[in-house]
């Protein structure tokens, strides 16, 4: 066991996979010599050399195009898009090309690409450098989508994403980068499509993702003080989605909450709510409640951003009120 920051876990996870597979390469802006603008790729250039860890120009289409072309001709690739907001400038490659080529060609090509990208708010970066865009990716058939909340999951899900033969968008949360936790020694490999039960409880189920997981846990501590036992599920993987974990938890608790950092409309929680309403309806003892960022571009001022993202306070109060 070693204590690693979420930031260090990114490089740790990539290194684990690059040691295992000598063909695996990575590319992105400032990832090699500079070690990444978030310092998530420190040390990789030294260990794996410039042939496998490549700096690129500011050319997001060229980055993801090169990743796709290499992947479909036998070279697995990890590509970095510095901020997830920038997916918008190369969205064609993500949503139209990588996601659909396998289906459109009758199964002729595989696209083993991991698109790593820094996602989410809390850094006071404003509306173009703070978005949570998991739902952009989740709605595209042909993309897999993961968003780890702990250093150990960063390593394990990175391994799962790299080993998966399909395109995976891997969201690294900017506000979790400095968080630290124990990471087991040796190889860590998680499964895509498995949620994690992070706190057991019998009164309500709260599904959360990435930065919202620690906030939901904090809220659960306070709810416990009021005699409400909240069960927290870290969704981890939006596609594939572990619906069984959600439905079996709701069967036990009878209440379902989502905590989403994305703006309200079409957030991932809406899909989960719909599944629970369809398939868990008779187990529900009350309405499904979504706790989200309001439907606004994220403001930059500390005071305003803090009012926007779901906080432990807001989760606590919402659950309190709706459980009465």
């Amino acid at each position, binding site marked *: 066991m070693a204590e690693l920051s979420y930031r260090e876990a990114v490089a740790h996870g990539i290194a684990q996979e690059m040691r295992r597979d000598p*063909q695996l*390469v990575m590319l992105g802006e400032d990832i090699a010599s500079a070690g990444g603008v978030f310092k998530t790729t420190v040390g990789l250039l030294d260990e794996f050399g410039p*042939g496998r860890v*490549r700096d*690129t*120009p500011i*050319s997001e*289409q*060229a980055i*993801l*195009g*090169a*990743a*796709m*072309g*290499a*992947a*479909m*001709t*036998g*070279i697995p*690739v990890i590509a970095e898009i510095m901020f997830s907001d920038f997916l918008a400038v190369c969205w*064609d*490659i993500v949503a*139209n*090309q990588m996601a659909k*080529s*396998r*289906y*459109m*060609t*009758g*199964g*002729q*090509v*595989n696209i*083993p690409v991991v698109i790593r990208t820094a996602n989410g708010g809390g850094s006071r970066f404003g509306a173009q450098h703070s978005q949570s865009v998991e739902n952009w990716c989740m709605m595209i*058939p*042909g993309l897999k989508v993961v968003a780890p909340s702990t250093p150990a999951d960063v390593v394990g899900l990175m391994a799962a994403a790299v080993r*998966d*033969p*399909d395109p995976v968008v891997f969201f690294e949360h900017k506000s979790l980068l400095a968080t630290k936790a124990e990471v087991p020694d040796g190889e860590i490999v998680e499964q895509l*499509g498995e949620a994690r039960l992070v706190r057991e409880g019998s009164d309500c189920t709260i599904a959360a993702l990435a930065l919202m997981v620690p906030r939901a846990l904090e809220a659960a501590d306070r709810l416990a003080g009021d005699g409400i036992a909240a069960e927290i599920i870290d969704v981890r993987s939006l*596609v*594939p*989605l*572990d*619906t*069984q974990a959600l439905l079996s938890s709701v069967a036990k608790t009878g209440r379902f909450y989502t905590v989403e950092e994305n703006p309200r409309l079409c957030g991932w929680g809406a899909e989960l709510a719909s*599944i629970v309403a369809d398939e868990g309806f008779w187990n529900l003892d009350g309405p499904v409640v979504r706790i989200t960022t309001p439907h606004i571009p994220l403001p930059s001022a500390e005071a305003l951003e803090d009012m926007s993202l779901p906080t432990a306070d807001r989760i606590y109060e919402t659950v309190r009120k709706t459980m009465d």
Partner: protein
Amino acid sequence: MSTERADPGAYDYSQRSARLPAAVNQSNRDLPISIESRLELYELQQVLRQFEQRAYDLFMQNLVKGTSHLSLGMEAVAAGFGLAKRPDDYSFATYRGHAHTIAAGVPLGPVMAELLGRENGLLKGKGGSMHLTSVDHGMMGSYAIIGAHLCIANGAAWSAQLRGTDQVAIAFFGDGTTNIGAFHEALNLAVIWKLPVVFVCENNLYMEYTPIDVVSAVPNPAADRGPAYGLEGILVDGNDADAVFHVASRALAKARAGDGPSLIEAVTYRHGGHSRADPGKYRPADEVEAWLDRDPIPMYHRRLLELGVPEGDLATIQQSVAGRVEEATEYAKNGLHPGPEHLFTDVWADGGSAWRN
């Protein structure tokens, strides 16, 4: 204009503003290309021409649905590159990709069946005319959103570099494509990484319905941009298969030798409209007529006769191609319409489409 022009098929720029074709450069007859290769170029152009004429007829019979973009009149480009490339090289084409698919060696039957949306189609009916792909033939896809595949071709070239093969990736695209950002991103990356990739602009003078000179900052939309990326601006007569073959061979050899990318602009013209829905009425009649007079296939036919090939040999080739197109048509018409079992396959590499448990 700093753009250098390749000798073969040298394009007489003075005629460009009128959008009229340059005269045939008769010295291309003397290029060092064997008669065997020339007969292959002739046959390939015949295949492309007759195949697409048949595809057009099948649209008219409403057997081909959706849209489709023919390259009738542009066959010399696909044929020249098709013959010059190695079977293990990669091709990337646009939605106007029937010719490049066939020139990569893909059998006609599955291509025709794909146009008809049949289960025995190249893509099992799931891609259609705009997405023809055959990985077994190095035909890595036809891309219907302008620009992306230039960046993707770079990736295939990068992969060849990483794997230490001497394969080359070729990306075909239109004149209109030179005005999208991906074109510029792709050229820059290819040059700085010295990738084995050849970018081939098929300048047919129109981006959809708009003349390219009206929307481009420079007269030769690809060749004039080359120097901005440290690339020679190569212009070639895209209606002369010998000229294309010659220039293609040079660029492929350069890439294979590790000397980096090339950008080639082949000037040509489509005989028909942009797509199935377009009668092409925005083009002046005299312009169309002048280009029909410069049809690459009769010109090549005349050249082979001048080089001493008997008329009968050429007639035999034409007839055998007609037979192959007929067979392909039968193969396609006899294909079944795909059943529902195909809907949910091949989203993922495991063959399925499950997104949840």
